[in-house]
């Protein structure tokens, strides 16, 4: 179906005449005849706008989204409230529809947003240099690995098992290409095993890669763990959750050379996993090795302040095979959403939100730990996510909770077989005390019912003592 085109039969005739051909088909004669398709694609013909809308609305209706189920699932992406002004600003044509700002004179809006965003991420992470954004979190970890190889001329990464499994797997995928070796260091009590880490780092190590809070929600002592990297001249790479940086010591103050992460919690919706953005900050020393776009301040010929893409000599469109990375995308619109969200929260709101998450999470952790058949998986300090162990098969429990209108969390068993019935529970400002109480109830009922139908009984038939929630 003709859609979004304007050429009338008269237009076509005039255009063909100007070109000097009989028909548009003549223009396709440069394609050798055997390679012309010569039939319609096996795709249905086009539909009207209302039909397309209805078709997609029907598909959307078959998903249990966070409006249909109360969402306690996190694992890197979170059901935060995206303020109304984020939608209002990101849907403006002037931000939605331009390309990368290759012509800075007519792209000052987008370039200044990048500059403001870089400033915000630099403030959050405590590192002086930020780029304008990468694809998303896990591939940013792989890009940090590539940078570290270039900086150290070494090919080994020491990676904590607390790093998001998707990040570790993505790093492994990229490593097949740039040929790096990965050494994994395990967790003890929810935290990276410091002794094992120190033993694994040596003079061949390009980077030590940590995550804090780690995948199990635990806040790592990055500074202490990072000492091994410093000692051997490896870069310290820290993945982090930006929403925790209102209250946690920023990676830059803990000795990180690179701080990065998944940006979705800042002003981006869940979207079943994307698009979002990755943020990537580093020390001054690494500025010329950074991946991705970077906006910089300058002046025009009349002395007016302006912004341009800086340090383009790092990039693929200039340096080709010698570029510091192949990336060409900055997720500019997603970074704009983050910037507007951060401006809306502001200096104090951002900290207050971090505190709110910590308080509600402490409550939820304690509340769940008191449920029969639920135990804390670790007691390390947490901010907004924590892990528990269920005394019933986690898949069956999650099914029951879903029937009760709750997405209770992220099952750990697939990626952490050592925690077969582990469950990761995430809290946002949208999860009220009442919803947390409801989760505890539904979870308790589900476990009890499954346990009794399996003919086994909880090992805790005595009423449990309330446990301290994450007190270190």
């Amino acid at each position, binding site marked *: 179906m003709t859609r*979004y085109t304007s*050429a009338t039969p008269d237009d076509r005739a005039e*255009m063909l005449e*100007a070109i000097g051909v009989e028909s*548009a088909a003549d*223009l*396709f004669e*440069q*394609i050798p005849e055997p390679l*012309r398709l010569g039939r*319609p*694609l096996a*795709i249905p*013909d086009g*539909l009207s706008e209302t039909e397309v809308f209805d*078709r997609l609305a029907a*598909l959307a*209706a078959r998903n249990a989204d*966070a409006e249909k*189920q109360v969402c306690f699932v996190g694992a890197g992406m979170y059901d935060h409230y995206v*303020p109304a002004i984020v939608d209002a600003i990101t849907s403006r044509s002037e*931000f*939605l529809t331009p390309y990368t700002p290759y*012509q800075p*004179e*007519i*792209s*000052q809006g987008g370039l*200044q*947003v990048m500059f*403001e965003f870089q*400033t*915000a991420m630099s403030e959050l992470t405590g590192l002086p240099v930020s780029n304008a954004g990468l694809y998303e979190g896990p*591939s940013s970890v792989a890009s940090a690995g590539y940078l570290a190889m270039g900086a150290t001329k070494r090919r080994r990464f020491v990676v904590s098992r607390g790093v998001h499994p998707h990040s570790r797997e993505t790093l492994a995928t990229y490593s097949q*290409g740039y040929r790096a070796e990965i050494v994994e260091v395990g967790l003890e009590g929810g935290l990276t095993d410091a002794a094992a880490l120190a033993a694994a780092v040596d003079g061949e190590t390009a980077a030590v890669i940590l995550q804090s809070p780690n995948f199990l929600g635990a806040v790592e002592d990055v500074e202490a763990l990072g000492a091994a990297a410093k000692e051997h001249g490896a870069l310290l790479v820290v993945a982090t959750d930006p929403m925790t940086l*209102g209250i946690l*010591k*920023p990676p830059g103050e803990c000795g990180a050379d690179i701080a990065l992460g998944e940006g979705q919690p800042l002003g981006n919706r869940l979207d*079943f996993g*994307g698009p979002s*953005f990755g943020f990537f900050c580093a020390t001054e020393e690494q500025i010329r090795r950074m991946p991705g776009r970077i906006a910089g301040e*300058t*002046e025009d*010929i009349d002395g007016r302040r*302006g912004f341009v893409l800086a340090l383009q000599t790092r990039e693929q469109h200039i340096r080709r*095979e010698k*570029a510091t990375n192949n990336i*060409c*995308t*900055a997720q500019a*619109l997603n970074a*704009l959403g983050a910037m507007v969200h951060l*401006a809306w929260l*502001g200096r104090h709101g*951002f900290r207050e*939100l971090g505190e709110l998450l910590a308080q509600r999470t*402490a409550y939820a952790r304690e509340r769940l730990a008191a449920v029969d058949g639920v135990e804390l998986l670790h007691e390390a300090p947490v*901010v907004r996510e924590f892990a528990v162990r269920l005394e019933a098969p986690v898949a069956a429990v999650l099914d029951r909770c879903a029937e009760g209108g709750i*997405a209770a969390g992220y099952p750990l068993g697939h990626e952490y077989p050592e925690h077969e019935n582990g469950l990761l529970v995430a809290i946002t400002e949208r999860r009220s005390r009442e919803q947390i109480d409801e989760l505890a109830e539904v979870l308790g009922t589900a476990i009890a019912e499954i346990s009794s139908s399996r003919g086994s009984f909880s090992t805790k038939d005595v009423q449990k003592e309330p446990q301290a929630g*994450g007190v270190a």
Partner: protein
Amino acid sequence: MPASETPMQRERAKTIYEKSKPGRRAAVLPDAGVPERPLEDLIPANLLRSEPPRLPEIAEPEIVRHYNRLSRRNFDLDSGFYPLGSCTMKHNPRLNERVAALPGHARLHPAQDPQRAQGALELMWLLQQSLGEICGLPHVSLQPSAGSHGELAGLLLTRAYHADRGEQRTKVLAPDTSHGTNPASVTMAGYEVVKVATNERGGVEMDDLRAKVTDEIACLMLTNPNTLGLFDENIAEIAALIHEVGGTLYYDGANLNAVMGQSRPGDMGFDIVHLNLHKSFSQPHGGGGPGAGPIAVSDRIEPYLPRPQVVRRESDNGGGPSFDLEFDRPKSIGRLRGFQGNFGVFVRSYAYILSLGADGLAEASETAVLNANYLKARLAEGRAGERLPIAFERHCMHEFVLSGKPMKKELGLATLDLAKRLLDYGFHPPTVYFPLLVDEALMVEPTETETKESLDAFADAIEQILTEAESDPEIAKQAPYTTPVRRLDEVRATRRPVVRQPLGD
């Protein structure tokens, strides 16, 4: 300072941090509603931050005003003609934004159990099927986040394919006209780039190719039509040469908008294709992202596709089919990113495919090619024809490349000057100085969604600029005059980079 500043030029850039004042705020957060404890009781003090990050302090009305004013300092596709070559700046249908924002899409958690995300997985599967048919390659992974990510994926697939056959190959061929991401991806994938020359018709130089095809070649990366907007007629022979030595053939789908429903990379002999959903399939460019770069591959490459893969399972008990994420793929190269990819982009692109259908896609490509050839013909007339000749004289596909070499020699105007003067005329300039093998290159891609009137206006503007340059070339050399800022010092931004706002306490 010139006296005749425009109002927007008079308004000097001020960042949101410079509008901040202690005590102002926008957000009001809910009460915690739970018993609160000192933060130090929850998290050890040595892990806590001493001072909050210096984010701006500003009320909502001024945040809205700040970003709305900033937005007016951008030129965008919805405001005017944007013939940026190799970028396919086609209209972004607003229907697609609406369906992507439905809560069932926008608020769906990526770790939702597949049985409770059937609509999303079915949509992904349907998109995979459609893209596979458009490419003529049956197996699709939606995971790559952008074109360059798809390229890296394709090269890692190539590596896995050869490794599985016990081979270690080291080199990847790419024409000198290729996009910069191609060689950059090759290096990242641990291969060495071998450049192939271009012949006098703008295609691959066959003798050069023959000389460089050896059993060390892992892959040939090609864009077809290439970045000159020309279809390489020797593609069947090229494919045969690469396949004879056991290499794979990679198709950079940045230019797919020329051939949808007309010709398929799979039928040309390609093994791996990436598609830019933000180009041919109408995802808005967002000022430099987001996009998505799905890949379609042949049977022999399929076992190595990234995981997880979206699959359809037929029911055992006579019910309807169900959709799932398949992780058990032992030969897979693994993940390229978190979760399943840029789903929001998939929704928009699938809505676009549903809207156009088979007939509409073919018509879109046909009109894109018609528009490009018409604009090329218009620019072959008059002064443009003399000063800005076409680099390769033949019919083009969806884009074409002009050379500003005579303009520079005869009028002293560089391609950059012409581009900057176009800004004053209200047009986004074409891609400049690419491809590299054309002197003073201008790469023009009008797309199918432009009217004949827009194309005529653009050709007229070029003619006017060249006319005024004959009497006073300084006009263009000092351009632009009307934009929010004038020519910027890019060298300084690289020599002494200032990449963030300095902030006091």
